[in-house]
C-alpha cells in the first residue's frame, strides 16, 4: 500500500478542498456502539473499503458490524490509526523498481525508515502488553472479519510467540479446545515425539 498520500489530512483527492475537515465513516458494532472514524482509518478495513466502493450512497448510514464488539473495534481503530501515522513517517518510493528507489533515496529517507521501524516495534510491544488471551482472540476474529491484513499478521505473530514454548495443555486452554485423544493415543504421541516435549515452559 502506498501511503505517502496520507500526509494529506483528506486522503480522497477527488473531494479535496484545501483545509477541509477529514471525512468520517460511521460504524455500528454488534453491541450497538457507534463509532465515527476518519475515512483514512476506516479504509484500512478491507470489509469497509469494499462496502463503500460498492455502494457510495450508504456513506450516510452507519455501517453495521455484527461480528465485532465495541471494545474490540476500539482497539482495532487505535491500532490502525497508529499504524497509519507510523507509515506516513516513511517518504513514498517513487517507483516499484528497487534499484531506482535506492538511487533516489537519500540518507534522510533511510533514517526515517529506521525510525519508523523502531516506532512500530515499540508500539506493537506496548499494544498487546496487557491484553488477556481472550482479548487477543477477540481481536484476531475482529481483524479477520474486518479484513485488516497487517493487524491480522501482527496478532497471529504475537499469539505464535506466546504459545511457542508452551505445553499442550496451555494451547488447549488458550484456544478453548477439548483434547479428544484416548489416554493411550495421547501417550503414544508423547512417546513418539518425546524430543518435542523437552524444554517446555512450566504451566
Amino acid at each position, binding site marked *: 500500500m502506498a501511503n505517502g498520500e496520507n500526509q494529506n489530512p483528506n486522503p480522497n483527492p477527488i473531494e479535496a478542498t484545501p483545509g477541509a475537515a477529514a471525512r468520517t465513516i460511521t460504524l455500528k458494532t454488534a453491541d450497538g456502539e457507534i463509532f465515527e472514524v476518519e475515512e483514512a482509518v476506516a479504509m484500512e478495513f478491507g470489509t469497509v473499503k469494499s462496502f463503500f466502493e460498492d455502494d457510495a450512497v450508504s456513506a450516510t448510514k452507519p455501517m453495521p458490524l455484527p461480528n465485532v464488539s465495541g471494545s474490540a473495534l476500539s482497539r482495532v481503530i487505535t491500532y490502525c490509526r497508529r499504524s497509519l501515522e507510523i507509515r506516513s513517517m516513511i517518504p513514498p518510493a517513487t517507483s516499484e523498481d528497487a534499484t531506482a528507489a535506492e538511487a533516489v533515496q537519500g540518507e534522510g529517507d533511510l533514517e526515517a525508515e529506521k525510525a519508523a521501524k523502531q516506532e512500530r516495534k515499540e508500539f506493537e510491544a506496548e499494544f498487546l502488553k496487557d491484553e488477556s488471551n481472550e482479548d487477543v482472540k477477540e481481536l484476531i476474529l475482529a481483524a479477520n472479519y474486518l479484513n485488516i491484513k497487517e493487524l491480522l499478521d501482527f496478532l497471529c505473530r504475537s499469539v505464535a510467540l506466546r504459545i511457542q514454548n508452551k505445553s499442550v495443555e496451555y494451547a*488447549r486452554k488458550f*484456544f478453548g*479446545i477439548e483434547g479428544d485423544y484416548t489416554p493411550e493415543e495421547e501417550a503414544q504421541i508423547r512417546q513418539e*515425539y518425546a*524430543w518435542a*516435549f523437552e524444554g517446555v515452559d512450566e504451566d
Partner: protein
Amino acid sequence: MMSNLLQELIAEILIRLPVKSVVRFLCVSKEWYALITSSYFIKMHLKFSIETNRDRTLILNEEDFAPASHYFSAVQFSSKHNRFGKTVEIYQPLLNWVVSDYCDGLVCLHKGHEKQDVAIWNPLVRKYRRFPFEPIEEPSGLSDVRFSHLAFGYDPHNDDYKVLRVIEFYMEDMIGMEFEVKVCSMRSPTWKKIDEQWPNMVICCWKSVALNGDVYWLVADRDGQHRMSLLAFNLATEKFRLYGTPVPLENYLSTFLDVLGGLLCCIVHDYTFCDVYLMKKYGVESSWTRIFKIEKNVLCRDFEYFRTLMFSTNGKKVLLEEHPECGRTNLIWYDIEKKRCYRVKNRSFPYVFKVAICIGSLLLLDGDNLIDPTQKENKRKRKRN
C-alpha cells in the same frame, strides 16, 4: 467446536511456529493433528520457513578415516544474529550413511559408494524413508569400472521429491561406455528406468544440483573434446537439455555446481583464483554473471575446493565450505565487497565434514522413526580423536 473459519486462523498462527512446537501440538486434538499433517499446511509452513529463514540448521556429515565411518551432527543457524550455535551430535542409527544432496529440509542419504542403498531424512522431525535396495545391472558387455551418481530434487509438477541414480559403465575395451539411469520418488518408491537415453557424455563433477524441477551435472563430450557443458534433466518430463557454462571450460579445470540464494551457481577453480558465477535468470545461458572472484591467497592457504552454501542474512557475505588439501574443513564467511574472509570459529565443529542445509520443514512427518520410541534412548558418547 472449531468452525472452518477458525481453523483457517489457527493455521495462520501455527505456520508461524518452529517445527518443534508444531510437532508437539500434534497432541492438542485430532483436528489439529489432521490440520498439521495435511499437505496444504505442510506446504504453507515450509513456505513460511523459507521466507523467514526459520529453523535453519546445518547438518554436518563427519568423515572419520580410521576406522572409516561417518557421523552426523547438527548446528543451528540464527538468521537474526547471523551466528551459529553449538554442535549437537545426532543419533547413531545413521552411522555410515553419507549425504548426497538436500532440498526443502529433506536430506538424501546413501550407503556404500555404489549408492544402491538410498534414504530420505528430515533431521528436524527425526523421520526418514528408506528406498528399496536397488542393485546395479551390468550392461550387455562387461564393464571394467563403474561410477554411481545420485541426484535429489523436487518436481513441482507432480509435487514429488525424486532421486535419480546414474551409473556410468566404462567397458572393458576401454572405448565403450554404457549408462543406466533410474528414478525413485517419495510418492512412487520403486526404482524405474527412464525412457530417454543418457546423452553420450561423461559426468565431470562430484555432485549434481537440483533447482526448480531440474537436476544438473557438468558433463563433457566423449568425442575427444574437453569442452564442458551443463546437462539438465527435468524431473517431470524426464528429458535432457544442454546449456553452456558461464565461460568456456575445459575438463581439466576444477569446476563445481551449487545452488546459492535460489540460483544456479558455478564455481570455477584456476591455479591462483576462483570465480563464482550465478545464473541470474533461470534457464537463460546469457544471464550467467560473475558475482565474485577469490584470489587464493585471500583464503590464506591452499584449499582443494570450496562450496558456496548460503548468503548471510544481509546478503553481503557468502558462507563457504572450504576443504583444504590437508587439515580441517572450515566454514568461512566471504565478504564480497570487502573481499575478506572470516573463518567461523566454533570448537564444536568436527574435523572433516560435508554440509547439508536444512530449513524448518514438516515433510516426512509420516515417515519412519529413526529410533524405536519404545526403546529407551541410548546415548553413547563417541570418542573423538
